């Protein structure tokens, strides 16, 4: 009996540590793969410029225009959540969240460009980015902590 209890005790301690390790390892791999894909897609979509100014260049040549959007909900891994929480005790820069938001913004912008291309637009003006925190992870680790980034703008298609 004592052996079983000791094993249960050990599991109670080891499980959270194991989950943290899984979060660290898999989370890092996912993040690296994501950054790699982002770089490649950004190079591909350089031909479709997206700008924050609202006036269309060569307004006289604009054939049609319409709203385009791109969005993504992304979450941080278990390990980074712990690191960020520790950081928040001492203050200072929280890199874990910086990279999360960077990934989300770049992804949302690319999705906006992809949907603009699908609609036949050749340029996006008036680009805006909005970030919304969806929900907090509860302190017991349940619940979801995600941020949504929405990129939107006006796609325009100009005559050649």
């Amino acid at each position: 009996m004592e052996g079983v209890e000791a094993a249960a005790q050990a599991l109670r301690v080891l499980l959270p540590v194991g989950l943290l390790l899984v979060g660290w390892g898999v989370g890092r791999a996912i993040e690296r793969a994501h950054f790699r894909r982002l770089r490649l897609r950004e190079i591909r979509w350089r031909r479709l410029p997206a700008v924050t100014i609202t006036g269309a260049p060569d307004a006289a040549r604009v054939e049609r225009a319409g709203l385009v959007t791109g969005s993504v909900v992304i979450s941080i891994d278990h390990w980074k959540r712990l690191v960020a929480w520790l950081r928040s005790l001492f203050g200072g820069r929280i890199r874990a969240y910086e990279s999360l938001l960077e990934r989300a913004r770049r992804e949302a912008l690319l999705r906006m460009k992809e949907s603009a291309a699908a609609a036949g637009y050749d340029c996006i003006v008036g680009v805006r980015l909005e970030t919304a925190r969806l929900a907090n992870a509860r302190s017991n680790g349940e619940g979801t902590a995600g941020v949504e980034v929405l990129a939107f703008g006006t796609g325009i298609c100009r005559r050649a």
Partner: protein
Amino acid sequence: MRGEPILLSNTEEIPGRSIRSFHGVVSGSTVRAKHIGRDIMAGLKNLVGGELVGYTELLQEARQEALQRMIQEAQGAGANAVVNVRFQTSSVAQGAAELFAYGTAVTVD
């Protein structure tokens, strides 16, 4: 005029068109709660981080619905375009979010 798709833009005007008249602010909103099945998947995904695809889709659908309601209001006002469209998302409660879209209904030629 009716039946023609309504033009949308988030800039001051529809590029390439000129505004003839204004019809005021139009808006549309929807409040969505998370789906339990999606939340379980998202909970698992939370462990390793990355995109929560179910939530991305959920919010996209909800935002489309809010836009659609805004468009209906604009059509009701006799507009054929909505300019300066803005979006807003707010968490009204744990597990629920409001998606809100608003803009200025106009007639363009």
